[in-house]
């Protein structure tokens, strides 16, 4: 579970994130811009995709069915791309709303995974669940720190939050 949730899934999202910066203009035409003003749609899409693949039942299904695993890989890639597209155009307040919700949620999920006695995934041992939970707490906190630092860098010279 540690490999699946802390290495494979974040790397896929990161892959999509990096790819979005280098997409040729014809793949992501400026007309998408209309549908992602202030990054709202991008944030919603990426949060929903990430949340879906954190549900224990879907994790099991992705482990057991290669077709579902393929869908997971593609959608996580899209998740990262959508997130990047959104971050490029989201004012601090919008970022605060979405990250302020999803990052604490991620940390809470990690705390739950690492403390519960109930084995949530039939495909993974209880022990790996503990480790994955602890890793999620670290991942969520690190992502939060990085994001806040980015915000600070962008806005430290402004008198008010835009």
């Amino acid at each position: 579970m540690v490999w699946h949730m802390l290495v494979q899934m974040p790397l896929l999202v990161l892959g999509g994130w990096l790819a979005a910066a280098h997409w040729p203009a014809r793949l992501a035409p400026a007309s998408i811009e209309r549908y992602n003003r202030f990054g709202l749609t991008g944030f919603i899409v990426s949060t929903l995709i990430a949340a879906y693949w954190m549900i224990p039942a879907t994790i099991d299904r992705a482990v057991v069915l290669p077709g579902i695993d393929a869908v997971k890989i593609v959608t996580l890639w899209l998740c990262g791309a959508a997130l990047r597209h959104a971050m490029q155009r989201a004012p601090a307040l919008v970022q605060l709303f979405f990250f302020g919700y999803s990052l604490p949620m991620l940390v809470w999920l990690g705390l739950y995974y690492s403390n519960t006695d109930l084995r949530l995934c039939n495909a993974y041992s209880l022990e790996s669940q503990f480790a994955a939970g602890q890793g999620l707490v670290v991942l969520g906190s690190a992502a939060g720190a990085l994001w806040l630092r980015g915000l600070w860098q962008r806005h430290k010279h402004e008198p008010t939050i835009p």
Partner: protein
Amino acid sequence: MDKSSSPVLDPAAAGAGLLPTFAACLIALALGLGLVYRATDGGRAFTTESLRRSEVARRPVPIPDLQVLDAVGRTQSLRELLARENRAWIVDFVYTRCQSICTSLGTVYQQLQGEIIARGLAGRVGLLTISFDPVNDGPSALQEYALRMRMQPAAWQIVSLARVQDRSLLLDSFGIMVIAAPLGEFEHNAALHIVDRRSRLVGIVDISEPRAALELALAK
């Protein structure tokens, strides 16, 4: 928008042209939440375990026809064993070397056995333990387990798979997933599986509720 500096919410411009974005957001939300709803049985089941339990309650699953081996070395069809004597069954899955969850299962089954015998219910419901580890659980291992658990054959029997190739068919039909654990042990989900008189899996009850399992079996 000027992308070289950070985007600023300009009230005058903000209202204009947000309709496509809002429409896209609504569609994304509807699709996404709809998918989550479907994957979790309407937001009720987030784990495979709870999903399979509600699935079986809605739609009974016929037990596959495979060969099992009992403690005296006889081979027979699982379906025949279940259909004989016209009674319902409570089935569980173990491997006899198990030190963890299978011991709790064993204790629960001993309680159930006591209750079945005390209330004279052996003609209406039986207990069946199936070992999914035929490599290590031959007839002598099964006999030893039966002695250890003080099984009374009228109420409680144990069998093992006759062929190890049938293991995935058996486990898949009941929804059991087995993972290798350290020291040659196995980690697996465990529950009380209710099989009716027609050899169909009709219910899955948590180990913590043997009474409910018994009542359900008696009703089938």
